[in-house]
Structure formats: structure tokens, C-alpha cells
């Protein structure tokens, strides 16, 4: 067979494939590359697990009273959604309040890139009006939700504002089947004139926000 028609051999790669055993024995240099990387060092764009991940701030040690006040707000919000008390749910938001569900965790602004929800209070009012309309067809089949909220951590707090993160799990019954949604909330809270906590921004990161959606979300999560 002439040289021209011979498939070029990866050569060094094979040595390296064998060399993997040595890697396991930890006798190789730290940056030993595996087969594919040896052939094309730049072919694998994956970041190593954990690399570049945002380090979550540990929860502040705040007084029991403040911790409880924040937790009760989050629990109330969850209960109002499950009870379909939309107006009361909206009232938890500050007048400038925004409810935002980005598609990707990297998104930082609620406006200017595609989002699953990006709603100020007027848009919330439109959604509430729609959901309550007798001919909101997709609302007609039986549906219920059940929210659990946990892992409540106050990240930052002063007299007037607060950053809180938490986790949620929502089960949704629609017709005869149940869907699960999970993820994290990040609430920016402010105190109103009466001293009550109000939501300035609620960011909701669905853990499966980037996957295809089987049907759509009817109402806030």
C-alpha cells in the first residue's frame, strides 16, 4: 500500500491511551492529558467540574427574629400561590417590584435578554387578569400547585434592604399528570413606610430552565 492512501496514524495518541494506566497510578506529571486532548489539546472546551462556579456567600448570622420574619414572608408567598390568591401575592411586591425568571444562570439583568418571566407590576396585573378570565382556555383543565421553600439564607442585610436566597420545589397537577419544578429564589427585599418587608426583585432560577419545556408555565413559580 502506498503511503498516500494510508490513513494517517494518530501515533502518539496510542501511547497516551496506554499511558492512562500510569495516570491512575499517579506517576505522571499533574497535567497528563488523556487521548483526545493529546490529539487535539484544544478540542475539549469543557471547564473542569467546579471551575468558575460562583461561590455562594455563607448565610449571615442574624437575630432569630429577623430570620423568622424573612422566612415567614417566603412561606406566605408560597402559600398565596398555592391558594391562587393572585392579588395578595402581587401585594407582597414593592411598587417597583419585578418578578424575573432568566433562562440561563449567567444572566444578570432582567431586561435586555430573553427570559422566561420578566414582569413588573403592570405585567403581573395583565397575567392576573388573564388567568381570572373565564375564557383563559389553558387554565380550564384542573390544575393545582404545591410549593415547598427551604434553605433560607440571608446573604446581606441593613436597616432598609436585604438579600435572601432560598430553594423551592413546586409540584404541579395538570389534567391527570404531575410535573416537578425545582430551583432557587433570590429575593431583594425592602421595607415599606410601615416597616413591612416588600419584594423589590425576585429572581427565580429553575434548575431545568434551559431544557425544552413540556407545555408552559401558567403562573408564577
Amino acid at each position: 500500500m502506498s503511503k498516500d492512501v494510508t490513513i494517517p496514524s494518530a501515533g502518539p495518541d496510542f501511547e497516551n491511551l496506554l499511558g492512562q494506566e500510569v495516570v491512575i497510578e499517579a506517576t505522571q506529571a499533574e497535567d497528563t492529558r488523556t487521548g483526545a486532548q493529546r490529539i487535539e489539546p484544544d478540542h475539549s472546551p469543557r471547564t473542569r467540574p467546579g471551575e468558575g462556579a460562583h461561590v455562594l456567600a455563607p448565610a449571615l448570622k442574624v437575630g432569630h427574629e429577623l430570620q423568622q420574619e424573612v422566612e415567614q414572608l417566603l412561606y406566605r408567598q408560597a402559600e398565596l400561590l398555592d391558594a391562587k390568591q393572585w392579588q395578595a401575592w402581587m401585594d407582597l411586591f414593592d411598587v417597583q417590584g419585578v418578578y424575573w425568571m432568566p433562562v440561563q444562570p449567567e444572566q444578570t439583568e432582567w431586561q435586555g435578554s430573553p427570559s422566561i418571566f420578566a414582569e413588573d407590576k403592570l405585567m403581573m396585573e395583565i397575567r392576573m387578569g388573564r388567568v381570572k378570565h373565564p375564557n383563559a382556555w389553558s387554565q380550564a383543565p384542573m390544575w393545582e400547585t404545591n410549593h415547598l421553600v427551604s434553605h433560607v439564607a440571608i446573604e446581606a442585610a441593613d436597616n432598609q434592604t436585604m438579600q435572601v436566597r432560598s430553594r423551592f420545589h413546586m409540584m404541579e397537577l395538570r389534567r391527570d399528570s404531575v410535573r416537578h419544578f425545582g430551583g432557587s429564589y433570590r429575593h431583594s427585599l425592602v421595607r415599606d413606610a410601615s416597616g413591612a418587608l416588600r419584594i423589590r426583585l425576585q429572581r427565580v432560577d429553575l434548575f431545568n430552565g434551559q431544557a425544552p419545556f413540556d407545555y408552559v408555565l401558567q403562573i408564577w413559580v
Partner: protein
Amino acid sequence: MHSMNTSALVEPDRVHKTVYTDQQIFDMEMVKIWERTWVYCGHESQVPKPGDYYAVTIGRQPMIMVRQKDGSVRVLYNRCPHRGVQLVGNQKGNTGSAFVCSYHAWSFHLDGNVRAIPLANGYEGTRMNRDNPDCSMKRAARVDSYRGFVFASLCAEGPDLKEFLGEARIAFDDMCDRSPVGEVEVVPICHRVMQHSNWKFFMENQLDSLHPSVTHQSTGISAGRVEKRLKAEQGSAPLYYHYLSTFASSFEQWDAVQTINFPHGHGILKAYMGLRPRDPDTLEHEALLKTAYGEEKAEEYLSRSIHHVLVYPYLSVQSPLQQLRCLRPVGPDKTLSEIWHFRLKGAPEAIYRRSLWYYNLVNSPATMINADDLENWTKGQWGLQSNGGDWVSFHRHFGDDRVEGGVTYSNHGTSEAVMRNQFSAWSTYMQAE
């Protein structure tokens, strides 16, 4: 599988329900339509740098759209020629200068040609040599693009891309012409929603102007109420309230809109979403276009009456709002929709943001509009699976349309000329040898 005669299933004014429900017909559609005609892969800006790839499904074929070192874009089968393993497992990424198989480290240049094989002398004297095309990744038979939108055909024969698109090219012209440099770039976040219905429901619905005020009344009315209040309080309301309230327009208003139906099943729903208010952002945008193209051309571009353009059987392009929806059928009762948004290069940020409201409100996985469409299509699919009737009616304004030079113009927006035209194309595809 293959030969099943579908000619008895489509009549000029009605079609048999099985074209929506039957697995065998679906399989034939994949072979005779999707795996033959030009299918949209993506926009060139999805793969800006050499080695950037995007996995895309054409019919039932897993393909990779990949940027070459010379700047061109190729479309390859996502399959290692050795033992068949898919070469990329992610939806998108950068593969560097080669695809490398995760199983036995066969590697391929970005154009699909074999690059290296471990211990290649093991193939000496066998049929697997460099000249054997079976040693390289298989390519889509044809790849072409129109104004940055990339299409591939898995079949070497048939019309070229320009001929296939025909007058539906206006979808891409209209979108790009709204940029002062004549180009758009993709917004790299895609909404993906699964439809529990046959792909035809979506394609019919896009130009069905009788449905909005029925299906979307709850959202249209609710948005109209808030819009009216804002106008009373402040004198004006942002344009996106109007986007939503328009859905509750009267039957008569929608009926006054015209559809234009082209060969190959493509079509246009005319109408205009009031995108030229006299606010500073719109005026700035218009001034940029006038500087770039001159007064006359700019006016021509801005006054086009287009609501949707359909590229049959899988694209719905809303060019004035820079959005594109693409169908990837999964089964007779399951269809994945991919919904993309674009930026007009060189246009004010405000124009993008304005259209973004529409993109999210109508298409996002929390949409207040498509939620009710999806409900209709799901129930439609269930209804057609029943024995409650055999035919689907497309009689509305049958015989009333005006046909000129192979193009069907409806006299009424609500004419079912749209569906009749789509099924005429469908029959041509399905009855081809």
C-alpha cells in the same frame, strides 16, 4: 414502510384525519419531505469562530453545523464512521480543530475528512484507507445560506435554496433590511417548547387569522384594560401592551387582513403591528435606515405589510419583530419548537428591547399567548385521534380566492386558502417517487 398512497387523503377542500395521527404517514413525511428538501439549520452567528458547532436535527438525522477554518459553514452527520458513535454529545460548543470520537479516538478535520486513527497500520490491506469516503464523516448533500440563515438538504437533487424559498425570501430580506448594515445576529438564548400535536397544527395556526380573538381573548382583553388605563393616566403606553391587546381585535379586523400563498406551501399573513410610532427611538432607527439606504428604499423597507412569513413546512418568521420559530418534528403527536430572536446590527438598542417584549410574551415557556394555542393543538390532536369524524374541514372561502401565476391571494384574512395551499404542497412532496 415507504409506499403508501396518500392521494386519497387530501381533497381540495378537506383532508383525512390520519395525516395528523398516523405513524406510517409521519415516517413518510420524514423521508419524502424533511430528508429531501432544504431544512433550516441555524444562523451563521450561532457558530462565529472556527470549530464552533451547533447540533441540529434534520428529519430524523442528527447533524452538526460547524464553522470551518476558511470561514464557511458545513453541515455533517453527527456520526463516527468507525462504529457509529455520535461525535458531539452537546447541543453546542467549540471542538477546536478536530472532532475526536470518545470511543476509539478517531479524529476528523472540521470538514469531516478523517484526520488520524490510533494504530492506523491496523488498517493496512483493508478497504478502510484514506481514499475511502466511508472513512470520513458523511456530509449533508447540499448546504447554502441566504443572508446569514443556513439551510441544508440531505438530497443532492431538487431545487436550489433560492428556488425553494421563492418569494418567502422576503422573510429574511425584511428582517435584515431593518438593520442599517443589512445584517442580523442571533441572540444566543433559545426558548424551546414541546408541542403535543402534529407539526401541521402549528403551520396552519400561524396564518389562521380567525383564531386570535377567540383563542387569545383572555390575554388580549386583560392587556387592553391596562393599556387603556395607562393611556388615560399618562397619555401613552409602551408598544408591548399593544402587541398583546391586538390579539383581541374583532373578527372583522382580522378578516380584513390578506394572506398570500406561494408554491411549496410558503405564505405571508399581511398586517402591521403599529411598529412606527413617532417616539425618539423609532425616529432614530428610521433616520439610520435613511442614511444607509436613502429615503426611498428606507421607506419601502419600513412600510412592508408583513405579520408572519411561513417557510413550509417548518419555519414561521416574524421579520418585523426579528423572531423565528423552527419546528423539529419528533412524532405524529410530538413537535419540538425552537424559538430564536435576532438583533438588528447597527440599530438602536431600544428597537431590540421593544421586540424582546413580544418575543418573551408570545413565546417564552411562561407565555400568556401560546399557552392557549398549545391547549388548542393538544386537544386538536386528541380529537383527530377519535372516531368522531374522519375529515378536517378547510372549506372556508373555498372557491373565492384569486390565483395569479401560481400564487393564491385570499380575499379574506380568514380564508382557509392557507391550509389548502399547504396541503397542495404536502401532496406534491408525498406523491413524488
